């Protein structure tokens, strides 16, 4: 009823997100993206993303306010991704959020992008069970987290030691002649393929490997070698089978490690987040394995898995409810903000 309205800003990569929530209720999720401008470069160009954030900022705020049916003066608190992410991109959002907070006379919360990916699920499935295990997989991150208290305590269990899972999708898509970003086209191609056609390696799954760390660089190279060998032999490349077998290797490792983290820590709730959590095979395999292990799986809709402003507003809402102190006026951006810093 009297829950505070939080305005959230997200500019850590190529999406300009402005979201508005009231408590756990999503009021608006406005998004502008510079994805198309990066496509011909095969990856996000930070300066192009930063310029696009500046151009899109005020119009995206207007869309969010209109969608929510509120005026800027109705906002009770402002939250913004302070890191991790691309410094130049982050700073556009941080500066904008600081200015809106100053102009509106409202508190400002600089938040962690990864924690916000967890918080967004509360908008769809209600308060998070705590502790939960969270697995965040995107083009920039692959992390396993233990979340005793989303507002104040998040612990890193493991992370990728080389490429993020989403990067592997992008690179495999290029090798297969599929468009950027690689996640959706690989997922589509894989539907027609046989996931057991090729036995691609499962990185860091040996008995002496770090239980919760990931490695996708070797897998990516193995796919490239396999495809190049076919091409050199003048044989056709079975794109659907390669996509399906690659995707299976990623989903297998991710879900096995997430379920193991739940078991090892006696936690029976798993939350997925990040753009790769939109992958259909990852979602299906996670459901299957969680059901078998008696773990409650929570996955936001694909729209909320990718970067957006609502997730930042959702975490801001948690911080306000928990009575966490707002950020200092000299808040900046930290491209490598550690995950145990939920807000700063």
């Amino acid at each position, binding site marked *: 009823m009297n829950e505070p309205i939080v305005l959230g800003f997200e500019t850590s990569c190529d999406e300009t997100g402005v979201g508005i929530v009231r408590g756990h209720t999503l009021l608006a999720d406005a998004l502008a993206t510079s994805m198309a401008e990066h496509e011909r*470069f095969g990856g996000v160009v930070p*300066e192009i993303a930063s310029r696009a954030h*500046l151009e899109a900022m*005020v119009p995206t*705020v207007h869309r969010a306010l209109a969608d929510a049916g509120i005026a800027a003066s109705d906002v009770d608190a402002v939250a913004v991704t302070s890191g991790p992410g691309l410094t*130049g991109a982050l700073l556009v959002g941080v*500066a904008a959020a600081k200015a809106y907070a100053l102009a509106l006379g409202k508190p400002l919360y600089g938040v962690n992008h990864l924690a916000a990916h967890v918080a967004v699920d509360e908008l769809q499935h209600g308060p998070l069970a705590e502790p939960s295990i969270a697995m965040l997989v995107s083009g920039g991150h692959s992390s396993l987290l233990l979340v005793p208290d989303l507002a104040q305590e998040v612990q890193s269990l493991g992370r990728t030691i080389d490429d993020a899972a989403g990067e592997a999708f992008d690179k495999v898509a290029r090798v297969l002649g599929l468009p950027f970003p690689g996640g959706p086209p690989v997922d589509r191609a894989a539907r027609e393929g046989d996931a057991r056609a090729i036995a691609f390696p499962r990185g860091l799954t040996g008995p002496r490997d770090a239980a919760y760390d990931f490695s996708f660089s070797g897998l990516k190279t193995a796919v490239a070698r396999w495809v190049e060998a076919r091409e050199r032999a003048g044989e056709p490349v079975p794109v659907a089978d390669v996509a399906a077998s690659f995707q299976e290797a990623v989903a297998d490792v991710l879900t096995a490690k997430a379920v193991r983290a739940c078991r090892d820590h006696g936690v029976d709730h798993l939350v997925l987040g990040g753009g790769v959590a939109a992958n259909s095979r990852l979602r299906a395999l996670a459901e299957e394995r969680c059901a078998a292990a008696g773990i409650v799986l929570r996955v936001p809709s694909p729209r909320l898995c990718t970067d957006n402003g609502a997730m930042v507003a959702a975490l801001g809402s948690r911080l306000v409810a928990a009575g966490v102190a707002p950020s200092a*006026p000299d*808040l900046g951006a930290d491209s490598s903000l550690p995950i145990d810093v939920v807000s700063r």
Partner: protein
Amino acid sequence: MLVLALDTATPTLVAGLARWSAGDGVTVLAERAVPSGTKHAELLTPAIEGVLADAGLAIGAVEAVVTGLGPGPFTGLRVGVVTAAALADARGIPAVGVCSLDAVGTGARTVVTDARRKETYWAAYATDGTRVEGPAVARPEELGLPGPFTGDPAFAERLGAPVTPADVTTAGLLRAAAPQLADPGSAAPLVPLYLRRPDAVPPTSIKPVTR
């Protein structure tokens, strides 16, 4: 009209509060020039709160925002521009952008500021202060202008001429903004003067992992 002026196009960020009217010109009430390095985002909002406190005024009293649009190093430049745009949007007041070099020094001069990569951002002005060339970016050795130079003295040696040290000022920003402040409806959208394209080259072919 109470105007908040901002600029983050150089390593010294500027925040100022001034009264402006078409008849009486500019009266600066408070100004802070903060050596910022690459910390514009951290330091700009505290500087704005600082000048408001110095003048004993609240943000709600501000009737227009003026910001430098550069040219300047991109990351810091965007901080000032997006701050001006957001403040003006939240308060429902006009935002006016000016060339930052116009706000450095007065009279006949060539303004030079640091464009990094051993280059300088520059613009040349007539005796009445009108900009006659620039803004542009060049190697100082190739500028071929007689001066007098004003701005970043670090370029004196490579220009082969003295440079009178000067920074962006609140009064300079307001002077440059006067035509737009007189008719805020005419104010152009806040588009930074980047003068350079993003550094990015599309890959020509996929590098094989095997050979």
